[in-house]
C-alpha cells in the first residue's frame, strides 16, 4: 500500500516537474528565438531554430513531443555547439556527483562526531561553543564560505589550488564549502536526537546492567539516535545539489551546475532546461531512496502505514 501510494505521488510530482521545466522556455519575455539568437541572426536561422524547437506547434503537442523525446533519452541539442545535450550531461554529471558525495562524507564525518560530543557535554561550555558555531555556520551561504576558504587556503596559505579540476586536490575546497554547511546542520540534529534518546528507559536499563558508558552510547543510544539523520541527509541533498551550482561557479568545477550557469549566460535555453530537469529529478530520486532507507532501518515504521 505504501509502495503504491508512494509511486502514485511520485508520478504526479515528476509530471509536474516536467511540465514546469517545459513551460520555462515559454516564460521568456518576448520571442524566445529572438532572445536566444540575438538581433543579428538571419531569418533563415530563426525559422530553422523555431522549427527545431517546435515552437510553431500547439502547446499540448509541444509538451507531448517533449515528453516523448525525453522518454527516449533525447534532450535535444545545444543551440550554440549543436552537440546533443545528453552527451553534455553525461560528460558533466559524474563531476557533480563526485563533488556532492565527497561533501556528504565531509558533512557526516565532521557533523556526527561533533553532535555526539555536544550531546555528551550537554549544557557545558563545550556544548554551547559547538552549538553556537554550528547554528551560525549553517546560516552562511556557499558564495560566502567558498571565497573565504579560497582566500585562506589557496591565496594566503597556498596549500590548495585556487580553482579548476586539473589536480586531485582541487576537489577539496569546493567539497569543504558544501560539506561545512551540511556538517553544521548534522551537528545540531545529532545532538538533539541523541539527547532525546539518552533519557529513554532502555538506556537506563543498559546503564543499570553495568555496561560501560562507551557501550551504552555506541551500541544502544547511537543506533536509535542516528535514524532521524537519514531523513535529514536526504532532505539536505536538495540544498547540496542546488549549492553545487554556486560552488561549481566559484571554483570552476566542470559539473552540471557550471553547465547550467554557462548555458544561462549564452542563453542556450534547451541546455538550461535539461540541467534544471536533471538536478530536480536527482533530488526526487534521492528523496525516494531516503524514504525507503528510513523504512528499512527502522522496523517500527511499517510499510503498511
Amino acid at each position, binding site marked *: 500500500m505504501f509502495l503504491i501510494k508512494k509511486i502514485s505521488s511520485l508520478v504526479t*510530482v515528476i509530471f509536474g516537474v516536467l511540465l514546469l521545466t517545459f513551460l520555462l522556455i515559454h516564460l521568456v519575455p518576448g520571442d524566445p528565438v529572438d532572445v536566444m539568437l540575438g538581433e543579428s541572426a538571419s531569418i533563415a536561422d530563426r525559422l530553422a531554430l523555431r522549427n527545431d524547437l517546435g515552437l510553431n506547434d500547439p502547446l499540448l503537442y509541444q509538451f507531448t513531443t517533449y515528453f516523448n523525446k525525453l522518454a527516449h533519452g533525447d534532450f535535444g541539442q545545444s543551440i550554440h555547439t549543436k552537440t546533443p545535450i545528453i552527451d553534455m550531461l553525461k560528460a558533466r554529471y559524474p563531476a557533480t556527483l563526485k563533488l556532492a558525495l565527497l561533501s556528504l562524507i565531509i558533512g557526516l564525518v565532521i557533523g556526527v562526531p561533533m553532535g555526539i560530543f555536544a550531546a555528551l557535554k550537554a549544557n557545558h561550555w563545550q556544548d554551547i561553543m559547538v552549538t553556537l558555531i554550528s547554528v551560525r555556520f549553517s546560516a552562511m551561504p556557499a*558564495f560566502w564560505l567558498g571565497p573565504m576558504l579560497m582566500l585562506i587556503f589557496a591565496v594566503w596559505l597556498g596549500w590548495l589550488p585556487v580553482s579548476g579540476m586539473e589536480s586531485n586536490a582541487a576537489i577539496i575546497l569546493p567539497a569543504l564549502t558544501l560539506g561545512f554547511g551540511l556538517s553544521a546542520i548534522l551537528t545540531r540534529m545529532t545532538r538533539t536526537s541523541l539527547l532525546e534518546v539518552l533519557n529513554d528507559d532502555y538506556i537506563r536499563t543498559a546503564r543499570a546492567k553495568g555496561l560501560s558508558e562507551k557501550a551504552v552510547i555506541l551500541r544502544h543510544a547511537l543506533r536509535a539516535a542516528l535514524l532521524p539523520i537519514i531523513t535529514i541527509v536526504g532532505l539536505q541533498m536538495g540544498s*547540496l545539489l542546488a549549492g553545487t*551550482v554556486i560552488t561549481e561557479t566559484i571554483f570552476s568545477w566542470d559539473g552540471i551546475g557550471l553547465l547550467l550557469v554557462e548555458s*544561462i549566460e549564452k542563453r542556450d535555453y534547451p541546455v*538550461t532546461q535539461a540541467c534544471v530537469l536533471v538536478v530536480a529529478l536527482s533530488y526526487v530520486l534521492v528523496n525516494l531512496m531516503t524514504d525507503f532507507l528510513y523504512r528499512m532501518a527502522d522496523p517500527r515504521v511499517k510499510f503498511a502505514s
Partner: protein
Amino acid sequence: MKKFALTVLIFWLLAVVLGELLQLKPNQIDLQSILATPSVAHWFGADDIGRDILARVLAGVQVSLLVAVVVTIITILIGVCVGLLAGFYGGTIDRMLMQITDIFLAFPGMLLAIAFAAVLGPGLVNLTIALSVTGWVSYARLTRGQTLGLRNRQHVLAAESLGASVPRMLFKHILPLLASILVVEATYSLASVMIAEASLSFLGLGIQAPNASWGAMLRDGVRYMLVAPHYVLIVGLSLMSLILAINLGGDYLRDKLDVRTEN
C-alpha cells in the same frame, strides 16, 4: 548575543542612513584608486574601477533589504491565502493545492529561482518575481498545517454556527492566531531572501551593473582575489555580520513570541 545582534543591526541601519545623508556616491569611478587598500579616503578600499567599497556596501544593503522586504510580503500574501484555503476547506481543494506545492518543493533549494531568473532575464523586478514565485511554498505549508488544527476549534465552530461568512472566519478567527508564527517565519525568510538575492546576483542573474549588490561584489572580489584580497574579505565580513544579526533577531523573536521550538 541578543544585544550584540541588536547592536549590529542598528549599526547597519545607522550606516545606511548616514550614507544617504552624506550622499556617498557608490557609482563614482576614480581611476586613480583602482583596487586601493583601505585608507582615510576609502575606509573599505576601492573596487576594480576605483569605486568606494564602503559606499557600495551601503548601497547594497539598501537594495538587499528592499528586495527582501518586498519578496517576503508577496510570498506571505500568496502563501497564507493558499494555506488558509487548503486548510479551511480540506478535501479536493486541499489535495489540489498541496499537489502544486509538492511540485514546487520537488525542486531543490534555489534551483527553481535560478531557472526563473534565467528565463525572465536579469534585473530588479525579474529578480523579485523569481524569488516570489518560488518562496510562497513554505508559508502555504505552514499556514495549512496550522489552519487544519484551528478549523475545528470551538470559537471557529461557534462563529460558523452563528452564520459568520467564510472570509470573516478566516480573517477574524483564524488568521490572528497565526500571526506570531508568521512573524517569526518572516524574520528568518528576510535573511534567506537576502542570501538568495545575493546568490542570484553572484551568478549574474540579479541586480545589474552599475548598481551595487553584495552578490556581484563578492563575484568581482573573487576575480581580483589574488591582487586585492581585501575586496572579497570586506564584502564577505559585512555580509556575514548582517546575516548573523538578522538570524539572531529571528531567534530572539521566536523566544519572545514563544512559538513552536525548533524541531
